[in-house]
């Protein structure tokens, strides 16, 4: 006899089919080390690859294999450490259940250290595995725009904006209000001194801010009884948040440090062909050329620069390099801004400002903030809106979700690449 008076039969069947309890257990054990399963799968796969490669290298040395092995070495190392720590934790847990009191005590002592080790190795592993977003190191702009609907959305937009401002202040991030446009029409005040906001932009000038706030982009939904509501009905409105990498300052700052590969101005010298343009025939003591023109060609982009303004070949070369650098930086910046524009329109085009694709809900009535992607519920909404630790918890959860998403995308990419590599003939025909 079932405990519940009636359970839908198809539900019971579906529970049995997916092995609900088993999956739940596995997730629970990995979640405690904050490693998404996709990440672990990938680590396992790469470690297997690494072992295979090293075995191959032992037989005969090949530069390509060695290079690939070097790439995955760090991951394999981190994964092995992680597995080791996990195994010893399992062993300790076994010991804890043993009858011998002395053994239990010993295990208890070791448990803390092992847990710490596990946490560290899992952190290392996730760092080694997670692909880095190209704009991850940049400062960012957070744009808050109210969704369609009445003043309620505008009031809440102000709350969201202040939430991020306070969050940055709590975290010690330097910020600048780039724009703060209040809707002038009404002049009324919402609850908590909210003003009706038309649009606001906050610049977080910290490096790596983009990576931190990337997951905040999307539709934020609020469910509350507005201060202007007289009959006490709960309204649902939405606020759009855009997070964009901020370039302006970065581009001028990197002018000097063109030795830094991250910089726009960086050029790999191996990619540049340098030619001296001079007449054929005898040179050296036979002739006395006054010009020493230099032509540089950047092979990947085909940009060519020639310089002959100075009598000094040294100066011409330096000038040519400078010109080439700034041209390439210009090109890169344009490409990046194009990418950012595409990002902006893909994140949320104004046509998409609907309540359907919400990423987060702030429910005042239940004192609850829910992130729909990370599947996280937190209470203490006032602390969230003050940008306190509760918001930090939500943001961290989103980071985990994003990392998993990235890994999945990476896996899909790799699979596609592998499929393309396996069937090159087909690919060609397809084109």
């Amino acid at each position: 006899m079932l405990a519940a008076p009636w359970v839908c039969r198809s539900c019971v069947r579906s529970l049995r089919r997916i092995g609900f309890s088993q999956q739940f257990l596995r997730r629970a054990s990995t979640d405690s080390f904050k490693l998404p399963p996709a990440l672990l799968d990938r680590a396992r796969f790469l470690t297997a690859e690494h072992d295979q490669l090293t075995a191959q290298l032992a037989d005969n040395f090949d530069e390509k294999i060695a290079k690939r092995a070097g790439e995955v070495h760090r991951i394999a190392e981190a994964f092995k450490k992680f597995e080791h720590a996990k195994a010893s934790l399992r062993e300790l847990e076994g010991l804890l259940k043993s009858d011998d009191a002395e053994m239990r005590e010993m295990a208890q002592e070791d448990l803390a250290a092992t847990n710490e080790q596990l946490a560290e190795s899992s952190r290392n592993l996730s760092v080694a595995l997670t692909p880095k977003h190209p704009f991850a190191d940049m400062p960012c702009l957070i744009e808050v725009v109210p969704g369609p609907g009445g003043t309620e959305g505008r009031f809440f937009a102000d709350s969201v904006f202040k939430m991020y401002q306070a969050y940055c202040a709590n975290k010690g991030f330097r910020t600048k209000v780039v724009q703060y446009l209040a809707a002038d029409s009404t002049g009324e005040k919402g609850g908590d001194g909210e003003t009706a906001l038309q649009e606001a932009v906050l610049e977080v000038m910290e490096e790596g801010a983009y990576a931190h706030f990337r997951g905040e982009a999307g539709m934020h939904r609020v469910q509350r009884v507005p201060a202007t509501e007289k009959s006490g009905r709960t309204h649902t409105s939405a606020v759009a948040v855009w997070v964009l990498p901020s370039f302006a300052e970065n581009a001028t700052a990197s002018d000097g440090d063109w030795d830094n590969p991250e910089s726009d101005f960086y050029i790999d010298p191996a990619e540049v062909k340098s030619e001296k343009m001079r007449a054929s025939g005898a040179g050296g003591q036979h002739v006395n050329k006054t010009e020493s023109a230099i032509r540089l060609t950047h092979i990947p982009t085909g940009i060519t620069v020639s310089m002959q303004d100075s009598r000094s070949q040294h100066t011409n070369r330096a000038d040519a390099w400078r010109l080439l650098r700034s041209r390439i930086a210009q090109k890169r910046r344009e490409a990046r801004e194009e990418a950012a524009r595409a990002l902006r329109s893909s994140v949320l085009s104004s046509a998409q400002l609907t309540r359907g694709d919400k990423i987060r809900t702030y429910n005042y009535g239940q004192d609850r903030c829910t992130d729909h992607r990370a599947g996280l519920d937190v209470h203490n909404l006032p602390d969230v809106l003050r940008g306190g630790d509760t918001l930090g918890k939500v943001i961290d959860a989103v980071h985990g979700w994003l990392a998993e998403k990235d890994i999945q995308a990476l896996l899909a990419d790799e699979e596609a690449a592998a499929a393309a590599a396996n069937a090159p003939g087909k690919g060609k025909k397809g084109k």
Partner: protein
Amino acid sequence: MPRLAPSLFRQARKQISPFAPLLLPVCRTLDSTANELRWIKEHVNSTDSLVPRKLGIWQACLKREKGIPLQYILGNQPFGPLDILCKPGVLIPRPETESIITHLTTLLPFSSSPLKILDLCTGTGCIPLLIASLLPSTSQTLGVDISPLAISLSRQNLSHNISLSHLPLSASKSITFTKSDIFSPSFLSSLPFSPGELDILTSNPPYISPAGFNKNTERSVRFYEPKLALVPDVNLGKGYDCLPEDVFYARLLEIVSVLQPKRVLFEVGDVEQARRVAEMVVRGGELKNYAGTVEIWRDDPEGEEKERISLRNNGEEVEVKGRGNGRGVYFWRKDC
């Protein structure tokens, strides 16, 4: 040389300046005419003179029209990061020399002790000064030339570049120039280096054959640069079994065999001459320490381009590096 079209002169006058047609026969193209005229103007504008500016430019252009090298008119030639003063009677530094010497300095390992450098036939002193400016460490450098004009100019260049802070103050002590005849029997004993301790020996000796001087040299070179620095004296070749233009290399290799420097770089005229010098190195009796290390460098020795050519005497092969004309012969002692 092909005749320049009269329309080109009209264009030069119209597009560049009324002075431009004066420079066109020497410069040959509108682009380089514009460049030279700009440099002349810059020079005249930056020097104080009682002569009115326009007149100064005109005078300079008239000189240039006659074929006088621009470097003698302006009085200097940039050479790497340096500014080398140039005066009639001393060879003007060439960009190819700059290239091969710059490349040489990239090959030197870092050493904490001062490098000992000897440059023979130094002329303006451009080679030792460039090495000294490019090396991170200090050096003990000696430049030798037979011409008193060259020696006084090279000393001027040393102090000139120190005053422009292209060279450190200490260079005034570490770099010296002396007048000496490298062919004299007492030359070797007069040097302050004992055998084996010299790190670098460089030389850009006269290497043009008497026939080549009449046929292959530019007018401005033939008429205005010192023949002493370009063509070896016929009388020097008496004791040596080689072509007249290679006499200096024969003598330089005698010096090498006594001093046993660690690295040697000679500038040469073309690949043929480079091959002949390489053959002399391979054949040389006292040069066993250098066997198998000979390289020939082209005008731009940097870069990936490489080929091998075989020598005539024993079929041995040497590597030819870079692009352009054959420009240098480089070899190093096997124990370093």
